[in-house]
């Protein structure tokens, strides 16, 4: 009997590699050193937060959520409430309670509160939703998204309804974006290796056997739902401070589907898949956008017709899903020299003896 290495020791290479990828992305931005490109990279970091947040629930539970962008919306508006200068919000958001409308919080405190705000609502919605599995659960999360969007699109005095609210301090720069993405990766990693993460993945594979193993599936799902709701809330808050302007429709179907696409293309069941999906799809989108704008060849400008980007992304997704249905990472985590090499070699050694009996029984 050999003592087993701790789960942290076995898997720590994954977050390290993902951190290196994020650092490389930030480094690219520094190297190009162009304001517009840097904004693109910040958006990529926020996307990483969004998709990693989605992975935390979807990847571990196996229930596809169409509703999480709603928590992003909540986080974004919450930080807007806390940070728009009182002189402005007194008029534009008259329905806010006095304690909020008369005060202005710091960036970091506001982000924290916005994250908690999204977490509280994730808990309340989750209490109801986590009992549903499969397509039923997915449709219910979609209904939740529609509810949230309807409230934010109509509550004139608190959210400005469909007109944009302005005056959110634009504080999200390259390094806050990086920090957000890095933190999301660390939190998602810690959840995945936690007891709850293991129990939830077992329920994803075999719900009945998980229950027979003592796993309270609804409780573990709720934990993942809240953690992922909070990551989305934080992403929304950083996004609000990135844009400076908010409308509820920025957090609806378009963002929901592109984020889910990134997760699926990367590999739904792995954290690495979430990060890889964002980086790869963002790179393709950016490349096509540049081509749509046109490139000068000699004294002629050659450009793709508008809309090529959307169509091409659709095509790329179909191709990837046909050839790699489990995503670019095949649902595996990135680690040193492939999937746990040390474990595989020790397994091979120890199964030599067993190979004989196996051969006989087969």
């Amino acid at each position, binding site marked *: *009997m050999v003592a087993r290495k701790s789960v942290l020791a076995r898997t720590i290479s994954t977050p390290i590699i993902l951190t290196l990828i994020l650092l490389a992305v930030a480094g690219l931005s520094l190297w190009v050193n162009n304001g517009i490109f840097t904004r693109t990279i910040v958006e990529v970091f926020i996307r990483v937060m969004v998709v990693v947040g989605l992975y935390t629930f979807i990847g571990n539970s196996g229930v596809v959520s169409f509703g999480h962008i709603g928590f992003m919306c909540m986080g974004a508006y919450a930080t807007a409430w806390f940070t728009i200068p009182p002189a402005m919000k007194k008029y534009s958001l008259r329905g806010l309670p006095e304690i909020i409308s008369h005060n202005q919080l710091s960036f970091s405190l506001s982000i924290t509160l916005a994250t908690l705000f999204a977490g509280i609502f994730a808990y309340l919605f989750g209490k109801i939703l986590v009992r549903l599995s499969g397509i039923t659960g997915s449709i219910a999360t979609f209904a939740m998204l529609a509810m949230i969007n309807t409230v934010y699109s109509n509550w004139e005095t608190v959210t400005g309804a469909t007109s944009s609210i302005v005056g959110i301090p634009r504080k999200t720069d390259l390094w806050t974006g990086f920090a957000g993405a890095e933190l999301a990766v660390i939190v998602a990693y810690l959840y995945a290796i936690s007891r709850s993460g293991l129990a939830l993945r077992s329920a994803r594979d075999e719900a009945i056997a998980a229950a027979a193993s003592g*796993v309270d599936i609804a409780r573990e799902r709720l934990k993942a739902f809240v953690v992922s709701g909070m990551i989305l809330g934080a992403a929304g808050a950083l996004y609000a401070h990135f844009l400076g302007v908010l409308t509820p429709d920025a957090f609806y179907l378009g963002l929901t589907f592109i984020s889910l696409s990134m997760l699926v293309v990367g590999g739904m069941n792995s954290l690495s898949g979430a990060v890889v999906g964002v980086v790869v799809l963002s790179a393709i989108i950016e490349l096509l956008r540049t081509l749509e704008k046109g490139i000068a060849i000699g004294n002629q400008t050659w450009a793709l017709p508008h809309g090529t980007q959307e169509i091409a992304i659709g095509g790329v997704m179909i191709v990837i899903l046909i050839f790699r249905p489990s995503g670019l990472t095949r649902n595996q985590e990135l680690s040193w020299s492939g999937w746990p090499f040390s474990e595989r070699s020790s397994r091979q050694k*120890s199964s030599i003896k067993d190979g004989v009996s196996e051969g006989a029984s087969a």
Partner: protein
Amino acid sequence: MTESLTTENVTVTFDGLTALSKVDLSVPKRSVTGLIGPNGAGKTTLVNVLTGFQAPTAGRVTMDGADLGAKPAHKIRHLGIARTFQSGRLFSDLSVVDNLEVTGVGLGLSRRKASAKAVEMLDWMGISSLAERTAGGLPYTDERRVAIGRALMLEPKYLLLDEPAAGMSAEEADDLSRLIARIVSEIGCGVLLIEHNIGMVLKTCDDIHVLDSGKIIEVGPPAVIKASEKVRHAYMGTQVETEGEVL
């Protein structure tokens, strides 16, 4: 008070169809109880009732005298009633040792402790060599053994085995019999063994219940069951001799 897992008058109906009718069954601790009967007799339904996967329409389930009420499956496991499934149902994406670790974690251990217990259990079962294999790719017999190991984590009081020998060769079934004997003697479980392999049931069990069309038609030690006219008629058909090697 005798320590046992017991059903009293358990009836289960699905849309008017009676799956179990007034079933009394007792699984004493530290012994092996057999449950046999033709396909569709209600054996798996009975296991589902005992493990919280199926609420009885009438009657009750007690463990060591205490009523289990309408507890959900995961709470039943916390009370110490474990089971395996006909179809294995391993967590196919996880390694073998993680499959066992899930039960430890499900029952409240930290990952570190659950992992250590899982390693211990694999060692006890003599299948340490499988530890890091992905459960999805295991051969049939190993899959069964891993499923039993997963159920045995943290030493449950009762273990319900749903057709664990299906598809096994005679030697493998013998190995399984020996394992069941060890489970009783070393862990002290009360085991309920559901099997179609009559030879194995007669050899392994202390007491056997025969279920037919949702009713218990005979109870007794192997010798009684072997001689029973009713069992012969219901289970094997009148023409077939009950000399064990039916399958």
